[in-house]
């Protein structure tokens, strides 16, 4: 029975090939758009998730400088308001896992004929821990390097590539000005951060080395920022309050005075970014779904025309014993076949389009099995939903009226 019905559906579709193809095209475009948009949306979510996990979790950054509700008032290049002692005090607070004071600036580096300008972070070994940043090669510097202000450095992948090319950097010596620095290790690549800056274009060295031997700061022990990793996500609100209270007390700020530092919850920033991409990807999906809806309406339209055209045929079939459900099944099957074939083609085009977006526009795309399955289920659903009314209309025809129809 099903074999005969499939055969008949095929024949009916073949009888009006162009019309069938155009109807299918509606589904092709709809499904293709949904698959492509879902791939791009999920890709964006994936990219943001990657970036966020590269940031390290449960992180605060305390920046040196006055702030008000309007933003940073005092430029952070002026007299730094944070120092190593602040960092040590924060480390004693409840719920704080790791603290890393950071002093930074940009420097010109030379290795043989190669020059490279990179961002230097002078910090303590706990920095890598706070940012969950493993080494790709070599070893990290230690607390004794910090105490002795030794000229050692860890470099990011971008620096390694630009300064050392194909050579292995570990153990090599590069120069900043006239001073030689030994590369202890290469950091594992992290890619871009949320602002789109290359996180691998950096040099990490002992805090004291940066302060005394690279930047020569006039303010002993001062740092530009302190990285704080809370023990857990739940601890973050409490930690935020206690850091603020502690620093205000240590900096002897009167009640009316503004903070002379800025406390930023990077996790909150990350959550906002994740939420933004989620909404964007939902929106893309919703817009694409509209074209799927239009495709479905196209199917309904054509099926209605087809029922009218084939009224007499329906009458004949009823006269020789077709039940209502036979007629219903016949037209429903046709609608489902059109939408499922359209869906398959749309799927191929959508995945192809996603691959193209990835190749040409360097977009991160994710085509998940679930989105493919969803597309198929939706297409079959569209076929049933939009095919049902015309099929029901056909099945409900009065056989005599149908037979008399010219």
């Amino acid at each position, binding site marked *: 029975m099903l074999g005969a019905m499939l055969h008949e559906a095929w024949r009916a579709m073949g009888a009006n090939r162009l019309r069938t193809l155009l109807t299918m095209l509606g589904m092709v475009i709809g499904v293709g758009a949904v698959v492509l948009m879902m791939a791009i949306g999920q890709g964006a979510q994936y990219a943001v998730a990657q970036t966020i996990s590269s940031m390290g979790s449960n992180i605060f950054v305390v920046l040196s400088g006055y702030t008000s509700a309007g933003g940073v008032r005092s430029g952070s290049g002026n007299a730094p308001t944070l120092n190593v002692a602040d960092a040590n005090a924060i480390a004693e607070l409840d719920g704080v896992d790791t603290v890393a004071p950071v002093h930074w600036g940009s420097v010109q580096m030379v290795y043989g004929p190669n020059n490279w300008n990179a961002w230097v972070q002078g910090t303590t070994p706990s920095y890598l821990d706070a940012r969950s940043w493993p080494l790709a090669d070599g070893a990290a510097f230690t607390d004794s390097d910090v105490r002795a202000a030794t000229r050692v450095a860890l470099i990011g992948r971008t620096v390694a590539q630009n300064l050392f090319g194909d050579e292995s950097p570990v153990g090599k010596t590069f120069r900043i000005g006239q001073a030689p620095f030994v590369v202890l290790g290469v950091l594992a690549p992290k890619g871009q951060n949320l602002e789109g800056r290359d996180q691998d274009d950096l040099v990490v060295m002992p805090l004291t080395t940066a302060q005394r031997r690279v930047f020569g700061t006039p303010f002993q022990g001062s740092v530009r920022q302190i990285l704080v990793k809370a023990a857990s996500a739940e601890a973050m609100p409490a930690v935020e309050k206690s850091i603020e209270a502690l620093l205000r007390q240590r900096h002897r700020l009167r009640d009316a005075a503004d903070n002379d530092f800025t406390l930023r919850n990077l996790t909150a920033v990350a959550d906002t970014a994740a939420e933004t991409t989620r909404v964007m990807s939902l929106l893309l999906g919703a817009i694409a779904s509209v074209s799927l809806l239009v495709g479905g309406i196209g199917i309904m339209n054509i099926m209605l025309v087809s029922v009218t055209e084939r009224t007499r045929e329906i009458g004949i079939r*009823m*006269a*020789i014993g077709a*039940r*209502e459900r036979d007629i219903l099944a016949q037209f429903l099957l046709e609608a489902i076949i059109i939408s499922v074939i359209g869906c398959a083609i749309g799927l191929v085009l959508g995945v192809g389009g996603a691959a193209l977006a990835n190749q040409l526009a360097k977009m991160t795309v994710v085509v998940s099995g679930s989105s493919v399955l969803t597309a198929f289920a939706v297409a079959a659903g569209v076929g049933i939903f939009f095919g049902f009314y015309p099929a029901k209309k056909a099945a409900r025809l009065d056989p005599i009226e149908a*037979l008399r129809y010219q």
Partner: protein
Amino acid sequence: MAEAVIRIEALFKAYDTPAGPFPALKDVNLAILPGEFVAIMGPSGSGKSTFMNILGCLDRPSEGRYFLSGRNVAELGKDETAALRNRTIGFVFQGFNLLPRMTLADNVALPLVYSGIGHAERRERAQAMLDKVGLGSYADSLPSRISGGQQQRVAIARALTNRPSLILADEPTGNLDSHTSQEIMGVFRALNDEGITIVLITHENDIAAHAKRQVRFLDGRIVHDAPTQQHEAASC
């Protein structure tokens, strides 16, 4: 006496029209026994087709009772009347009503699709039926490739393919020339000789002469019901 294939008691049929109900059949009573060959005659508009549609379970009477092989049709559901049309009744129409996109074999096999019979058996039985009406070699042709008389033979084959006990034909020769009409009537007579009950509508006396019994309608009533005169002469 054998049980009647068709028994109609006090049957009325009124159509709803904008001008109010229009009585197309008024107090019709009729019994048809197995193996009969009945010609229904009467002027245009006398209610013949209306009557035939009720016989064929395509339409329902407004009043009165209709027993088909002893079963009260009014008590049957839609699927059951569909099954009757599929297995018990074979229809032959004036306009042949073959499905134009299907081969003759597929047309003839169509009733078997709705009986849930498998592909191989459908094909075999359709071929046998086409052979029976002398068109076995056209099995894979489309209806548009053969003449009207041939199309009507195929339609008869289709009506027969599910081995019905009753054939209903509404002016089956209405679109055919007189020579072809006689040929088609020959097919009906052969079927009747095999024991199949046949009821057909016609306007023409020489067509009706092939039947064994003639029923005449006028204004929705049966006004004449008698065996065909000189039945033997007409058959020669």
